[in-house]
């Protein structure tokens, strides 16, 4: 049974979180968004391979504002999740996890890198 008196030491709502916490929770949020964004990706893949007609339709389709928004949202969520995930893989190999400082630094690097990729994706999407 669940012990209701079990103490909860970290009440996340009352403490100031470090950058590593934001990078972590965004990794989870972007992962969940990517999971649903896969429906958009599979839909586009389906249209791109179904027939020449549906392939040629894609260009006009993704130019529709609602479609553009969902494709953009799926792509930037995937981009962030991938960059933050690579940070985890790098840390798994023992690089940059020896101290809180290195963790904080790699978190900032992940933020900067993902912002760069998101900027590239956004300018590409806006060109549709």
């Amino acid at each position, binding site marked *: 049974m669940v012990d209701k008196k079990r103490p*909860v030491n970290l009440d996340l709502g009352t403490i100031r979180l470090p950058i590593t916490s934001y990078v972590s929770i965004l990794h*989870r949020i972007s992962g969940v968004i990517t999971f649903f964004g*896969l429906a958009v990706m599979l839909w586009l893949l389906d249209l791109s391979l*179904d027939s020449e007609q549906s392939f040629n339709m894609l260009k006009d389709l993704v130019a529709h504002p609602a479609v553009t928004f969902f494709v953009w949202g799926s792509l930037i969520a995937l981009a962030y999740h991938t960059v933050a995930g*690579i940070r985890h893989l790098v840390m798994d190999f023992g690089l940059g996890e020896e101290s809180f400082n290195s963790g904080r630094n790699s978190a900032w690097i992940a933020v900067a890198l993902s912002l760069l990729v998101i900027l590239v994706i956004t300018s590409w999407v806006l060109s549709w």
Partner: protein
Amino acid sequence: MVGIVSSFSRSGVTNWLIQRISAVVMTAYILFVTAYLLANPGISYAQWAELNSLLSMRLFSLLTMASIASHAWIGIWCVLTDYVTVRLLGPKADMIRKVLQVGMVAVILVYLVWAIDILWGI
């Protein structure tokens, strides 16, 4: 109670490893498709369909889809067992979480079947 019955491999260490291996496969797929599209601007339907008809490409896509399936199962299980809990949501949390887990597995299965249908329907 949060149990491990609904976790992907029932072993935390195995889940951890599957999560990493699937991540590497998916990253490789993203990099390959991005590089291919960048190298072939204004690609025609014929060329795109030819690439995706290759057995090697179909298997790469299918391997990526299988990676997505296991990766999402493990990741969403972690998120659900962390936040949809009795402590945070009250006594109904266990039931809500089980419903959400079944829904998650159903979506994954739909994705898998859909992907196979796309790849082998070219």
